[in-house]
């Protein structure tokens, strides 16, 4: 039986690791349960140009390795497993990972968000056969081939630009007439000769199920309703994220989109449970805001434990 700790942190992106740094330095001996994709979404990115302190940019995985080392340096203990169950109905709270039940008087939820899919039946059938949510993983397979990226935010633009290193042509499918991403990324994408915009368009279907893999996407113009086939070998979906809150359904108040509801800083509906990073943020979703809210959650947890 594990002894009850002061604080458990679930998640190991910028939010969770920053909470680790701060709670460890407060001598709370945090246990950080990393989850399968340790390091979070930044592990699947390339260069991060907007994290303060890195004037020449930093690779996402390298940034996360630094944050992890910093958290461990001050005594954060880590467990490499996914949390499969939590009990927040009484204190100490419990979290089960890899069959072990860990308990703590305060809990910090930093489980982040995962890539959202289009929801087409063909998409599931073709996952791994041309449909991808990880450009850095799979771009390699599309050397000299035409592909499509779906989405218009920074993630989509970054993926599209990255994929031009491999692909012969990248069709960027966006349902609006203008991009949502930051100006610098928009300029880069629009200036790239390999990127062709498909404005006001949505993916109505993906062709290739039952064959070797994706052969084309069917685009529908949302103004005219007309459809057309665009031959591609791959489709990268970057239409946003959905919060990883399945674990907390019924245990924490969630909003209509599944995000953890926070108030007065990082407090959730359960006193002693705090949330930080993308799991509670559908507005900013930046590495730096996630890290900032991880710091807030750590300070909130410390304050809570001091007043018990």
């Amino acid at each position, binding site marked *: 039986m594990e002894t009850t700790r002061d604080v458990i942190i679930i998640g190991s992106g910028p939010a969770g690791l920053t909470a680790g740094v701060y709670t460890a330095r407060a001598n709370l001996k945090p246990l950080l349960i990393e989850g*399968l*994709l*340790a*390091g979070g979404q930044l*592990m*699947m990115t390339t260069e991060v140009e907007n994290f303060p302190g890195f004037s020449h940019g930093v690779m996402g*995985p390298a940034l996360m390795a630094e944050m992890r080392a910093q958290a461990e340096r001050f005594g954060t203990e880590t467990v*490499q497993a*996914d949390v499969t169950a939590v009990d927040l109905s009484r204190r100490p709270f419990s979290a089960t990972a890899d069959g072990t039940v860990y308990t703590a008087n305060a809990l910090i939820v930093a489980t982040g968000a995962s890539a959202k899919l289009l929801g087409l039946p063909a998409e599931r059938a073709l*996952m*791994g*056969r*041309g*449909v*991808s949510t*990880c450009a*850095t*993983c*799979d771009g*390699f*397979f*599309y050397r000299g081939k035409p592909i499509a990226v779906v989405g218009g935010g920074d993630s989509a633009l970054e993926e599209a630009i990255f994929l031009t290193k491999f692909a012969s042509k990248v069709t960027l499918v966006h349902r609006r007439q203008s991009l949502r991403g930051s100006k610098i990324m928009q300029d880069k994408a629009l200036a790239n000769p390999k990127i062709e915009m498909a404005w006001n368009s949505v993916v109505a279907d993906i062709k290739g199920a039952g064959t*070797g*893999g*994706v052969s084309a996407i069917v685009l529908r113009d949302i103004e005219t309703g007309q459809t057309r086939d665009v031959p591609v*070998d*791959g489709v990268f979906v970057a239409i946003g994220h959905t919060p990883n809150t399945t674990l907390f359904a019924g245990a924490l108040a969630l909003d209509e989109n599944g995000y953890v509801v926070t108030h007065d800083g990082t407090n959730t509906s359960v006193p002693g449970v705090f949330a930080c990073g993308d799991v509670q943020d559908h507005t900013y979703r930046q590495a730096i805001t996630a890290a900032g809210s991880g710091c807030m959650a750590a300070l909130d947890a410390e304050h809570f434990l001091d007043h018990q």
Partner: protein
Amino acid sequence: MASDKVQILTDSNFDTTIKGAALPVLVDFWAEWCQPCLRLGPTVDALAAELEGKLVVAKMNVDENPMTPGRFGVRSIPMLVLFKGGQPVDQSVGLVPKEELKMMVTPHIAE
């Protein structure tokens, strides 16, 4: 990224290994630059140790072996493909927990 329970496959030894195997073979297609692949590696190693004698576990680096992944339609990694009698019978894409992998291979291995 492999333990001694895991065979290393290449374009040149792939067919002989897969077709010659008496047991089902689980092949992990991966690359160094794929972060989820690096995370999945230890899980695959653990599965190899756990199911030794029932399942052959092998890894193929897609960067070093350009021929084989395409033959099996691998366009995303990490991808695990289960071969039985030389034929692919099931697959798993992305970072998945060990229990899920066990559920995939269990119906194909002898007790």
